[in-house]
């Protein structure tokens, strides 16, 4: 009990990174769970879908993993109020599974991009952002080939503008994402998906010159939220 599930699919490659950070940097209890063994969200304090290239990212990033029983069972998370975080490929999976709105398209320049960027949090709320301040700048690296967020105007204004949102600082959008969107959440913030990697930005030793470890607030929020709710 009191554990975070880190879901692993064939091709997931940030599972150990997230595990290390959650466990060693934030002293939270976690377990890497192979997708075949993940039956239900019940009993977990939170679920993290880490980055990587599930099923080779073939067809579309996240498309095949989104159709697995493990992800299909996540629908319950919403009703049970269990926090779910999708990082990079995890975000792509959540979008492909329609647990978050929109779509993630190939980067505008057609290339994979690995780079540190600055993002801004808007309307922070929920287990993953409870400790973030409105307008707080979070520095984190991105590393993806399909991160160009797309959403229709209506959904953007009617839904996303009411929910927590993470956007690239103007001029730092690495992929051509609409509205500079780097991450989106459900209105209550219980399910959050983002392209940047907070686990790579949780220790100052890994932050290059001029950047801070902007991922910390996400895991610190989770730690507080698991203890005290959000």
């Amino acid at each position, binding site marked *: 009990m009191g554990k975070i599930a880190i879901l692993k699919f064939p091709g997931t490659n940030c599972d150990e990174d997230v595990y290390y950070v959650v466990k060693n940097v934030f002293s939270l209890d976690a377990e890497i769970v192979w997708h075949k063994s993940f039956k239900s969200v019940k009993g977990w304090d939170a679920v993290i879908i880490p980055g990587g290239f599930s099923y080779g990212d073939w067809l579309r990033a996240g*498309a095949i993993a*989104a159709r697995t029983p493990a992800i299909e069972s996540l629908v319950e998370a919403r009703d049970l109020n269990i926090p779910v975080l999708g990082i990079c490929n995890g975000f792509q999976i959540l979008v*492909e599974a329609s647990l978050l709105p929109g779509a993630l398209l190939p980067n505008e320049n057609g290339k994979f991009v690995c780079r540190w960027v600055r993002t801004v949090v808007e309307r922070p709320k929920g287990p993953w952002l409870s400790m973030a301040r409105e307008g707080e700048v979070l520095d984190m690296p991105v590393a993806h080939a399909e991160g160009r967020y797309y959403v229709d105007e209506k959904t953007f204004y009617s839904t996303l503008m009411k929910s927590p949102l993470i956007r690239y600082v103007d001029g730092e959008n690495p992929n051509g994402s609409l509205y500079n969107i780097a991450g989106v959440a459900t209105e209550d913030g219980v399910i959050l998906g983002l392209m940047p990697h907070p686990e790579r930005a949780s220790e100052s030793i890994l932050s290059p010159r001029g950047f801070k470890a902007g991922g910390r607030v996400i895991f610190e929020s989770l730690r507080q939220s698991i203890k005290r709710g959000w």
Partner: protein
Amino acid sequence: MTSTYLVEVIITNKKGVRDPEGETIHKHLILRKGYASVQSVRTGKYLLLSVNALSGEDAIRIVKELCEKLRIYNPVVHDIEVRLRG
């Protein structure tokens, strides 16, 4: 009695969703190399399924169904075309 049919699935971006790859191929490759008669380029993904079915229509029906159910395309951004391979 079933036989095998080849069914093509073509997934392209919806109108209104940009296709930077197509734009790049058009602008930076084709036009720059002097093929001015090319007006535009759109890119997409192509799948060729070989399907056991009762008839061509049956094969198409099966593929159309699986494209919807398995979300072979993402209706938020994609158009899809399913057809028998001629």
